[in-house]
Each structure stands twice: as C-alpha cells, then as structure tokens.
C-alpha cells in the first residue's frame, strides 16, 4: 500500500525498516508486543509465522513460553487459559485450523477473554486446497471475535499492535482476529517498518484489565447460565462489540498520531465521485486500485472501498464511503451455500446500508481457492457493473466471476 511504503521511506529515527513477509511481520509484532505465551499448531500457510516466532524465542529476542500444542483446538484453548491468568497470549492459524478452533472461538469471546490471533486466510476443504480465499474467516464471522482484514505486511503488523489495545480495553474485553490473504500477503516480502518494543509497548502497554485467575482473589470463569441469566450475558457481549467499534475508531486515530500511518476502518480510493464502486477486502485493495485508474482512463468513473474492520461492522464509515455511488459490487471470497445471493459480505452490507445509501448492490464472488484476480479482471468487473447500471440490468443473483462455463 502506497501510504505505508511512503511512511517506510520516511525513515523514522530509531525504527527499523525490514524486508518481511506478512507472516514474518506478524512475528515481529508479537515480539514488539512482548507476548507472554504463544500456542500454535502448524498449518499452511500460517507456518512460516510460527517458525519466525520460534526463532525469535530461540534467539532470546522474545521472552515467551511457546506451547507446541497437538491441535488448533488446543492452541486456542491454551491461549485462552494463558490470558485468563493475566498473560498476553497469541495464536495463529489458517483454514481447517480455524474451523477446528470454532467451538472454542465462541467460548473465548463468550468468556470475554481478550486474546489475539492472526489468520493467514485459506480455503476450506473439501476438496483440500492450500490456497487462499476467505471461507475460513467467513465461517468464524459469528463467533463473537473482532475481525480485521488486512492488505499488506505492514498493515498486518500495525493491526496486530492495535488489536491488543482493542481487545484489552476494559469496555471491550473481546478477542481479536487479524486476517490477511494466505500467500498473497503471508508469503510476499515487502518493506515493513518495525517499530520496536519500546514504541509498541508504550502504545499498547501490558495492563491486566480483565478478571484474572488469581489465588488471592478467586473467581469462577465458565459458569452454567440458566434461562434467567443467559440472554442478558449474551446481550452484554453484543453491546461490547459496539464498544469495540468505538475503541477501534479511537485506536486508529491514536495510531496514526503516534506512528504516522493512517488506515481507517474503511478505506477508499477515488470513491468520492464514483458511479461504480467495488467493495473489497484484504489484498484485493492493491490490484483493484490500479484497475480503478485504468477504468477511469476508459471513461468510467470507478471507485474502490476497502473494508478493514469486518466485525463489528463499521456501518457509518461504509455509508459515508458509498454514499454517492450508483452501483456497488461487493466482492466476496466465500460462498454462502444455497442463497441466490451467495456472498456473505454482500448480504450483510446490502442489508446494513439498505436505508442509508441510494446505491444498488451487486453480489460478486471471486478468487475462490485463489483463482487469480489480475488488474484486468477488476477492470472487467467495473465495466460489467457500469453496463448493468446503464441498462438497469441487475441480475439479483451472484455473479460468479471467473468460473468456467457459468
């Protein structure tokens, strides 16, 4: 992303700029956040991150206990146990690993345990695919985690730093997931500004803001809630998500002030006067921006909106970003089986914004199992949307871009 690269070139004194993949950038963030306990199980394409963390521990650059768990289910369970004692914990996974964690994801958010994990997104089986799409995170969208989609190694590093601030906010106390595209981001080496422990810890200091397991003040965590209590406890959790939204806004601002890199919960590119816009997530931000410029050269006013914070959904920011657009193609990289509009993000965004913006929404599914989306593919999508808008021909069904024979 251009902004962060320029920031990287600015050479902030005392701060290192390193060539890092997304996975390795996350490992550096784990170091700079002084995480106490790392519990992880190997899965492609997450593995190089945990390898990098193991190296940092082996070299003495990170003082953390690493738990070589026997499954992802145990990874998230051990991380939760560690945070319950007052430690800063971390785990990371992909695909089937996230699916295997699924049960515990609900429990961690339900118990308001503020841990953080990174997800190098990958398609779900079957058939088995080690390549990228978003079906793993979409499957976890209703687990009560705060979820970020990030677009670059730098953004992954930065968002991990923000994640602990949000998770550990006493009004929030929710786990945070920082997701990025497997391979495209996890394995692509980019210049990354690594802020170092001192700067990161002054931004995200270690303070136990949640109820911890302490023999001097014994609490019971994980009780049985009867019908008289369960609903209120879950509603409180729902409200905590909106506290997380407020916290995310505050933390973004503060982060921009301190580190001079600004993202926003929703990012836009030439969207102000766009007739047709695409709503994308994660690494599509890069190719799609180039496509905006090319499409505009051909006379169609294209624009781009990137959703960075997915849960809680920043509806205000989305409405502002899409307020003046005629048609919005929502690009999903997951399929909600059996729906005429099969894009999960499409369904959510079009419902949330129905009464707030005048735009027509079109569901687009692309990139399933890492079917490549080049710049020209996004140009084609912009043109297709433009044609449909001009002819007032909206299919009302998902456009499965790039699938043969459809």
């Amino acid at each position, binding site marked *: 992303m251009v902004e962060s690269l320029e920031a990287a070139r600015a050479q902030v004194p005392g701060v290192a700029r390193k060539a890092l993949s997304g996975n390795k950038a996350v490992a550096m963030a784990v170091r700079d956040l002084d995480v106490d306990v790392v519990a992880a199980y190997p899965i492609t394409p997450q593995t190089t991150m945990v390898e990098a963390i193991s190296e940092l521990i082996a070299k003495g650059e990170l003082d953390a206990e690493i738990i070589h768990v026997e499954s992802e289910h145990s990874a998230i369970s051990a991380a939760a146990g560690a945070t319950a004692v007052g430690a800063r914990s971390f785990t990371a996974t992909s695909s089937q690993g996230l699916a295997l964690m699924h049960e515990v994801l609900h429990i961690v958010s339900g*118990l308001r*345990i503020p841990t953080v994990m990174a997800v190098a997104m990958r398609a779900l089986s079957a058939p088995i695919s080690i390549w990228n799409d978003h079906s793993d995170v979409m499957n976890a969208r209703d687990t009560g985690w705060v979820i970020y989609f990030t677009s670059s190694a730098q953004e992954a590093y930065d968002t991990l730093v923000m994640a602990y601030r949000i998770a550990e906010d006493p009004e929030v*106390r929710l786990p945070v997931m920082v997701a990025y595209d497997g391979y495209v981001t996890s394995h692509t080496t980019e210049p990354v500004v690594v802020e170092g422990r001192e700067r990161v810890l002054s931004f995200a200091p270690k303070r136990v803001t949640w109820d911890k397991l302490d023999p001097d003040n014994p609490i019971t965590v*994980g*009780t049985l*809630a009867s019908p008289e209590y*369960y609903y209120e*406890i879950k509603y*409180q*959790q729902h409200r905590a998500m909106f506290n997380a939204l407020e916290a995310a806004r505050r933390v973004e601002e503060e982060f921009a002030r301190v580190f001079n890199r600004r993202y926003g919960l929703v990012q836009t590119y030439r969207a102000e006067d766009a007739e047709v816009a695409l709503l994308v997530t994660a690494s599509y931000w890069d190719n799609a921006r180039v496509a905006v410029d090319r499409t505009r050269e051909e006379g169609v006013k294209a624009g781009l909106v990137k959703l960075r914070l997915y849960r809680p959904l920043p509806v205000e920011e989305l409405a502002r970003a899409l307020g003046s657009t005629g048609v919005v193609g929502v690009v999903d990289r997951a399929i909600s089986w059996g729906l005429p509009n099969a894009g999960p993000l499409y369904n959510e965004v079009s419902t949330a914004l129905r009464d707030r913006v005048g735009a027509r929404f079109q569901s687009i599914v692309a990139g399933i199992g890492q079917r490549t989306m080049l710049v020209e593919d996004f140009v084609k999508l912009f043109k297709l949307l433009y044609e449909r808008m001009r002819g007032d021909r909206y299919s009302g069904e998902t456009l499965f871009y790039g699938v043969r024979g459809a």
Partner: protein
Amino acid sequence: MSETRLPTWTEVTPGGIVREPGSTLRLDKNGWRVEKPVIDPEKCVRCRLCWIYCPDTAILEVEEPYTNSKGRTYKLTYKVDYDRCKGCGICAEECPVDAIEMVPEEVA
C-alpha cells in the same frame, strides 16, 4: 420476603464470571431431603468419618465440648448443617457406631 429482581444486562458480569467464592453456600438445600440425619451426641465417638465422607459440607465439626452420661468429655461435637444437607444418608450408613439416624422429613 426479600425482593428477587433479576439483573439487567448491565448488571450481569462479563461472560457470567462469578466473583464471590463459595457463594453456593447461600443456596438452601432443605427442599432436597426426604430424610434428615440426626446425630446422637451420646453415641458419637468423634471418629470424624461422617465429616470426611459428606459430599455436601453438611457435617459441621465444632469446637464444642460435650460430656456424655459415662462422664467422658469430647472436645468436638458433630452437627448437621441442614441448609447444606441433601439427606443422602452416607453419614448414617458409614457411622461405625450407628450414632446417626435418618429421620423422615415431616410435610408441613
């Protein structure tokens, strides 16, 4: 009767955490019983077994001296905490000197 208003969503604890250890002691188990144990301090030899085996912390071991009819003085007395007792009868079954009798609960 005390007011039993249930907590609102702002009053419940995050995640249903309980911050008061041992608070089940406030729950009354009297209604669970069909029989209640009655300890005869005369027969009781203060062997501690009823206190050991009770699953419900319903046998109280109190520092209360007791002199029986034979003139023997014990430093301890065993009593039943009926708010805890579910009337299982383990204490009576295991008492080596049959000093505990299970007595039917009367219906009020």
